[in-house]
């Protein structure tokens, strides 16, 4: 059963140096506050997993927390490049970044395999692409019925998955709605799970159309962090801060500007 804890304590207990960590949320419900807590606690050597690294991983990479990135699309959506990501890959700043790179379909199926406790998943993917030549987590399997060759991708089972949701009840049952992305799979694939929520409600969760419910017994800790997805958003609670995403381009382009931003807005900030 999930414990309701402070973000500080939950991150401290669940996320360790060198862990493989997935902070998921496809544009919506990205757990920025948890990422900032990871940075504040100085956790390092992480293998970060995420379909769309987005600004959240740009921050973690620039902060020096990351050794390796497992991903499928690394950009600032609608804006342009992720400059901290590029600087790490191209110039090794603040240190080199190993990549395990996939397509979206491949990453989604890697989580599905992880949640299903299968060692791999099968898809019609990567055909004619150079991607399999750069990773050891794509292979081929042959259909035993038709003889057709298909792509196989290795399962992802993060040490920790962190997601942000709209609500939890006092027993740690969680409800999220709107774009729910690959969060259920990322949660069920993980060994440990932390959920930050906009709100802990009294009584039972009121069922919502399109919602995903995660029972408290698949979650290790729930932390109440209103606005914990900003500049991403939580449908029903906030809207996406598109200005932040656009301004991030200038903040992140320069190492010093970025470092100042990080000091002022993350390292010295207290939740």
């Amino acid at each position, binding site marked *: 059963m999930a414990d309701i804890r402070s973000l500080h304590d939950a991150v401290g207990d669940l996320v360790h140096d060198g862990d493989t960590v997935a902070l998921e949320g496809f544009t919506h419900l990205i757990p920025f506050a948890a990422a900032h807590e990871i940075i504040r606690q100085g956790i390092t050597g992480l293998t970060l997993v995420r379909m769309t690294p987005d600004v959240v991983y740009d921050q973690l990479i620039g902060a020096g927390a990351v050794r390796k990135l497992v991903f499928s699309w690394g*950009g*600032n959506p609608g804006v342009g490049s992720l400059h901290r990501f590029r600087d790490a890959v191209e110039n090794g700043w603040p240190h080199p970044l190993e990549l395990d790179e996939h*397509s*979206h379909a491949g990453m989604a*199926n890697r989580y599905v395999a992880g949640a299903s406790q299968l060692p791999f998943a099968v898809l019609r993917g990567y055909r*004619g692409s150079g991607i399999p030549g750069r990773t050891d987590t794509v292979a081929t399997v042959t259909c035993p019925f038709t003889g057709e060759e298909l792509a196989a991708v290795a399962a992802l089972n993060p040490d920790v998955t962190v997601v942000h949701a709209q609500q939890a009840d006092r027993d740690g049952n969680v409800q999220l709605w709107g*774009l729910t992305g690959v969060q259920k799979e990322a949660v069920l694939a993980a060994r440990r799970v932390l959920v930050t929520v906009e709100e802990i409600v009294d009584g039972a969760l009121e069922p919502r159309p399109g919602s995903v419910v995660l029972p408290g017994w698949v979650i290790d800790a729930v932390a109440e962090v209103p606005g914990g997805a900003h500049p991403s958003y939580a449908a029903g609670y906030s809207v996406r801060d598109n200005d932040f995403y656009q301004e991030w381009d200038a903040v992140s382009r320069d190492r010093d500007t970025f470092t100042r931003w990080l000091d002022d807005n993350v390292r010295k900030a207290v939740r």
Partner: protein
Amino acid sequence: MSGTESGTGSGTESGTDGGARCGRDELMEVNAARALAGARSCFVGIGLPSTAANLARRTVNPDLVLVYESGTIGSRPTRLPLSIGDGELADTADAVVSVPEMFNYWLQGGRIDVGFLGAAQLDRFANINTTVVDRGPDRPEGRLPGAGGAPEIAANCGEVLIVLRHTRRNFVPALDFVTTLGHGTGPGDRAALGMRGAGPTAVITDLGILRPGPDTAELELTALHPGATVEQAREATGWELRVAADLTVTEAPTEAELSALRALKAAGRKAA
């Protein structure tokens, strides 16, 4: 996020004959929208593809089903979303599904007629690179966003439209990396790989439209936008560009198309 993102600037102005005065990007966007006439469903990346698909719903194809890889099916946004996960895409959708379901049941399931892709580099067989670029012997590889949904969009949609600005930087003789297969090295490559969709059927640029030659699968310039010239297109292409014998000129954007396009963009800017 299928392929690279594009800014929303309107590019350089170019005079047109007979049509409304419009920019080069607008020519590209309007023609991309027109290419969606008759399609039932379209898998939409953010940026130019989203602009074109949303314009199509306001002009040539009001019933077009917009499918975004964030999980929305049948979205009807009132403005251009900045991100593929804007709340409005979910709020206005017929159905919202998980990302694995989107890629497995809907895209791989063969439910999508047209996929819309951008590109950082494109070669003569409409293969796409959005992963890395070679910046010369003394510099590290330049990092691009990566594949996103593109390899499987190109494999599994009924057909693929590619939209990008026509420059020598984009239209290269040889890709630095093959992220997404178009027509490989020529006819038969897709079939040999067991790919189900027809692959790229048109590349729509700010100068004109290129289509794979029926016998060669190599891109040929089949149409120019009003005001553009073959010389400009050759100049902006990194290989010796074939020009179709029956080269045509695209119809100039109508006032209705342009006003719909501009209203879309203004609403998007206002919301952002």
